[in-house]
C-alpha cells in the first residue's frame, strides 16, 4: 500500500436547505455531512456505519461527486475534483462506480440486464458492439451469472441475481473506487452471505478500493479493514475493524455493537441503554452531538465540542470523556 490515498477528502460538508418556498420564514438547514475527513487507500475496503440519517449515504455520493459539496475538498487520484467541470470529470468517472441498495429499483425494468450492464461502456464509447458484448459476458461470468442471463429482464431474476447484475455493471469499466451503499440490506440472509463473499473476492481480484456503507456492523466485519462510525454527519470513531469490534470506545459505537442480534439464544443480552425519547438534532451548539443519547454524558459534554483524536495507534475517537 503506498502512502498516497486514492481518495482524500478534507473538511467535507453538505448542507441541505429544507425551508421550502417560504424563505421569509425561519431558514431550516439539515447538516447531512458536517465536516468529515476521510482517506481511502488503494485496494482498501473501508466500512462506514451509522443509522439512517447519519449522513453516510450523502458522504458516499459526495465522494463520487454525484452531489456537489457545500464545503471542503476532494482529491481523487491526486486530482482535486471538488470543482472540476463535468466535462473533465467524465474521464475520471470511469474510475468510480456505485452499487445501490435496492436491486429491485436500480435496474431499468424495460431493459435487458445485459444492456443495463453495458451502459457504462456505451456512455464512454469503449470498444465495438461485439467487444462490449464480450466484456459483459465475461463480467457476468466473474460475478457468477450464466451468459444466457444477458437476455433476461430484471423481473425474471431473483434479488440476489439482480444485485449480481448491479455489481457487474459497476465493475465493467474496471474502476479503482466503488461505493457500495447498503449492497445487501434488501436481501435474505442466505443471499447476503453469498453477495458478501462475492464482493470480498472481487475486491481482492481487482484490488478495488471499496467504501462499504451499511447500518449492520456484521457486514462491515466481513469486508472492511478499516471502519468509521458516523453519527449526525460526523465521524465519531475510526479504527481497524477488528479493533473496533474488540475495543469500541465511543458510547455510540458501543450501542451499535450491543444492538447486533445474537448468533445463539444463550447470548441474549439485557436491554442496552438507549433512550427512546430523545431529540437527536437538538444537541447543544457548543457541545457533543451524542449528548442526548449518551449514557455516560457529563455536564462538561454540553460545553465542549467533541473532536476526533487519535487515542491509540490508528484508533480515532470523538469523545471528550475518553481523552485526558
Amino acid at each position, binding site marked *: 500500500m503506498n502512502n498516497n490515498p486514492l481518495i482524500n477528502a478534507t473538511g467535507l460538508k453538505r448542507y441541505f436547505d429544507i425551508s421550502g418556498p417560504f424563505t421569509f420564514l425561519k431558514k431550516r438547514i439539515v447538516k447531512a455531512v458536517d465536516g468529515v475527513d476521510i482517506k481511502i487507500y488503494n485496494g482498501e475496503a473501508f466500512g462506514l456505519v451509522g*443509522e*439512517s440519517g447519519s449522513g453516510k449515504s450523502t458522504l458516499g455520493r459526495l465522494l463520487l461527486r454525484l452531489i456537489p459539496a457545500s464545503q471542503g475538498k476532494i482529491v481523487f487520484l491526486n486530482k482535486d475534483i471538488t470543482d472540476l467541470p463535468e466535462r473533465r470529470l467524465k474521464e475520471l468517472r470511469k474510475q468510480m462506480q456505485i452499487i445501490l441498495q435496492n436491486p429491485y429499483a436500480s435496474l431499468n425494468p424495460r431493459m435487458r440486464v445485459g444492456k443495463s450492464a453495458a451502459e457504462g461502456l456505451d456512455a464512454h464509447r469503449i470498444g465495438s458492439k461485439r467487444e462490449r458484448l464480450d466484456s459483459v459476458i465475461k463480467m457476468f461470468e466473474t460475478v457468477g451469472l450464466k451468459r444466457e442471463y444477458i437476455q433476461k429482464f430484471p423481473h425474471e431474476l431473483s434479488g440476489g441475481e439482480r444485485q449480481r447484475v448491479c455489481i457487474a455493471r459497476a465493475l465493467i469499466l474496471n474502476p479503482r473506487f466503488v461505493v457500495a451503499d447498503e449492497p445487501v440490506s434488501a436481501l435474505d440472509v*442466505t443471499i447476503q452471505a453469498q453477495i458478501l463473499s462475492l464482493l470480498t473476492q472481487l475486491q481482492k481480484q481487482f484490488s478495488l478500493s471499496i467504501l462499504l456503507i451499511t447500518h449492520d456492523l456484521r*457486514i462491515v466485519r*466481513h469486508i472492511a479493514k478499516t471502519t468509521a462510525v458516523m453519527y449526525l454527519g460526523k465521524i465519531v470513531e475510526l479504527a481497524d475493524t477488528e479493533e473496533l469490534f474488540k475495543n469500541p470506545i465511543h458510547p455510540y459505537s458501543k450501542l451499535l455493537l450491543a444492538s447486533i442480534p445474537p448468533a445463539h*439464544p444463550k447470548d441474549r443480552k439485557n436491554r442496552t441503554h438507549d433512550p427512546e425519547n*430523545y431529540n437527536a438534532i437538538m444537541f447543544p451548539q457548543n457541545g457533543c452531538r451524542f449528548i442526548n443519547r449518551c449514557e455516560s454524558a457529563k455536564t462538561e459534554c454540553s460545553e465542549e465540542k467533541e473532536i476526533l483524536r487519535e487515542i491509540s495507534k490508528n484508533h480515532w475517537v470523538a469523545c471528550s470523556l475518553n481523552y485526558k
Partner: protein
Amino acid sequence: MGHILSIDNLRTYFFTPSGVIKAVDGITFSLECGQILGIVGESGSGKSMTALSILNLVPHPGKIVGGSVLFKGMDLLKIPKDTIRNIRGARISIVFQEPASYFNPVFTIGFQISETIREHLRVSKKEALEATIEILNSVGFPSPQERYRAYPHKLSGGMLQRAMIAMALCCNPEVILADEPTTALDVTIQAQILSLLKKIRNDRGASIILITHDFGIIAETADVVIVMYAGKIVERAVTSEIFDNALHPYTKTLLASLYKLSNKINNVSSLPPEQNLANQKKNCVFFDRCSMAEPACNDEEQALREKSAAHFVRCWKA
C-alpha cells in the same frame, strides 16, 4: 398453558397462469398462550402467507384450499365474514413489515388508531382518543399528546413501526402476528422493537408469532422455532435446540449464513439458486438445493418426523 391457536394442515395455493403455486402446503402447528413462536425462511417460503391465511386475508389469486385454523375452538376459515371482522385487529392483530405502506397517508396516525378502537370497542370518540394516547405512550412513543396528530410521513421508520405496533395492541389482542417487524429498520431501533415485543408478551401475556428471515432475531426473542421452505415446515423445535442441534440441511444452511455474518468467515458453500416453485412434484422440497441430496431422497414423500422430544424434521437422513 393451553393452545390459543391451532393450525391444522393449512393449504393456500395461488392459481397463476403459469401454474399452481403452493405457497402454504399443509402446515400444522399450534401456538401456546404467552409463547413467542418464530417462523423463519427465505422470501417465497410462505411465511407471510401463513400469517395472512390465519386471518383469512389471502390476496387474489390465492385461495385457502384446505385445512383449519382453530382459535379458541373457533375455525377462522369457516366462520362468517362479520364474525372474523370482529376478531381481526381486536383479538388477533397483525404488524406488517413496511409500516409506511400500511398506514393511510391522508389520515393522522391518532385517527387511524382510534378508528380501530372505535370499530371494535364501541366507545366514544373522546374515550378512543384517550386510549390511543395511552397506548402510544406504552409503546414508547415520544410525547403522544402532541404527536398523535402527526401524519405518517412526518414520522421516522422506527416511530411508524411503533405506531403500527400500538395499532395492533390497541384492543388488547390475544395473538399478535408480527411479519418481519424490524426488517426496514436500523439495528438500534430493531433492538428496541424486539424488546418492546418481549415486554408486551411479559406484561399482557399476549402470544406472538414472529416471522423473520434472520436467525439472529429468533435467537434474541423466540421460544419455539418453525423453519419453512417452499410452503412446508421442514423443522420445528425449541429455539436453543435448533441452534445447538439443527437437523435439516436447510436449517443448517440458514444458521451457517448467520454464523458467517456474525463471525467473519468467507467462502462457505453457498446455496444454489431457487427453483421455479410452480407445479412442483417432488418428494423432497429442498432436493434441488440440498448439498446432501441423493437419488433415494426422491423415492418417497418426506414426512415431518419427531426425531427427539418436540424436535420435528422433514428429512429422512437426519
